[in-house]
């Protein structure tokens, strides 16, 4: 009989389709896992409301569990409490950096207009001399930055709280 711990370990093998170095457990989207009427239920919290990766994650997750001999698992989407970038694990942050995406840092209050964009260090050369090109980047969760020191353009995983 598989346990919740086994399932959590299997989910370590399911990656985010848009950021393949991150597993869904690194991302912090997996919540409770429990058995209900002989069926394993995995609770997932969406990152951004419209993130198309969430549908793919569900497909990949169910395929992984099937491969591990759990054919009838179900995914339940939970919205509350809402996902925050604080739930990305320390290992996940390290993987993001190595992959070339700057992990989220604490940002100033979003009600402040024209506020200084967050200080983000370049994932290539570690310089703090970077600038925000656009608050909206290649996916809903990222902003577009450029390093003034090494000129590398890079994605910054926006802080969502």
């Amino acid at each position, binding site marked *: 009989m598989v346990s919740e711990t086994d399932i959590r370990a299997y989910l370590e093998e399911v990656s985010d389709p848009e950021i393949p170095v991150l597993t869904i457990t690194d991302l912090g989207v997996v919540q409770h896992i429990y058995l209900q009427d002989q069926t394993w239920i995995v609770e997932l919290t*969406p990152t*951004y*409301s*419209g*993130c*198309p990766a969430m549908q793919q994650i569900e497909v990949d997750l169910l395929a992984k569990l099937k491969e591990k001999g759990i054919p009838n698992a179900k995914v339940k989407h*939970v*919205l*509350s*409490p*809402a*996902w*925050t970038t604080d739930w990305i694990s320390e290992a996940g942050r390290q993987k993001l950096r190595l992959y070339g995406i700057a992990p989220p840092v604490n940002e100033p209050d*979003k*009600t402040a*207009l*024209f506020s200084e964009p967050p200080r983000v260090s370049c994932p290539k050369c570690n310089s703090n001399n970077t600038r925000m*090109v*656009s*608050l*909206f*980047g*290649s*996916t*809903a969760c990222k902003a*577009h930055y450029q390093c003034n020191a090494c000129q590398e353009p890079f994605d910054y995983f*926006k802080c*969502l*709280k």
Partner: protein
Amino acid sequence: MQESALFEYVLRLSDDSLILAQRLGEWCGHGPILEEDIALTNISLDLIGQAISLYDLAAALEGKGRDHDQLAYLRYENEYKNVLLVEQPNGDFAMTLLRQFFFDAFRLPLYEALMQSPVEQLAAIAAKSVKETRYHLKHSSEWVIRMGDGTEESHQRAQAAIDHLWRYTNELFYEDAHDHALQAAGKVPAMAEIQAKWMATVTSILSEATLEIPKNNWKFDGGREGRHSEHMGYLLSDLQYMQRAYPNMEW
């Protein structure tokens, strides 16, 4: 009564999100600069995501076995309950950003208030969406200030957009018997409360942008009752085309 009132209320929120998302999506590949092309379509995607959650809730409340796709794609024009503001054509960049600003300044306090709603799923959607909406309002507010307090040309275009769109803003605070029933039950906030917050944001941003609130108080409404402007039919024919041409198609 309350179930159907709540269905109607949630449907209005969903339709506002979907129709505005459709308008913003029209900018895809046409933005004035690449960053804004990406920003507008990102905001569109957030709104579509919010619409999916809201339609799911509406469908559950209705209990007739419809799903979010059926609600989004398979209704007639008079069954959509979005405000007229969100269906207005994109116009120039100033028109799009002013429309967005008026909407974001309304949505943020509304979601903040709905986070306290005893309707659990509605409160959860609001708590999720409020975080995205803060980014949207920051983006649209900064553009309104940049355009209003920018060049003579950008100022004039921003003011023209305000003068045109102002007539549609009062409908954001529309209330009828459905709203009153839900408010009496403590499930949703009074619109007067939201309107006061909206007005405070609008006054402060427009003043910083050196733009003026029009004196003309002529107001349009009808969207909440399913009476739309002539633009809505064209928008829906685009939005619904695939489902109408190839019923039940999926990809």
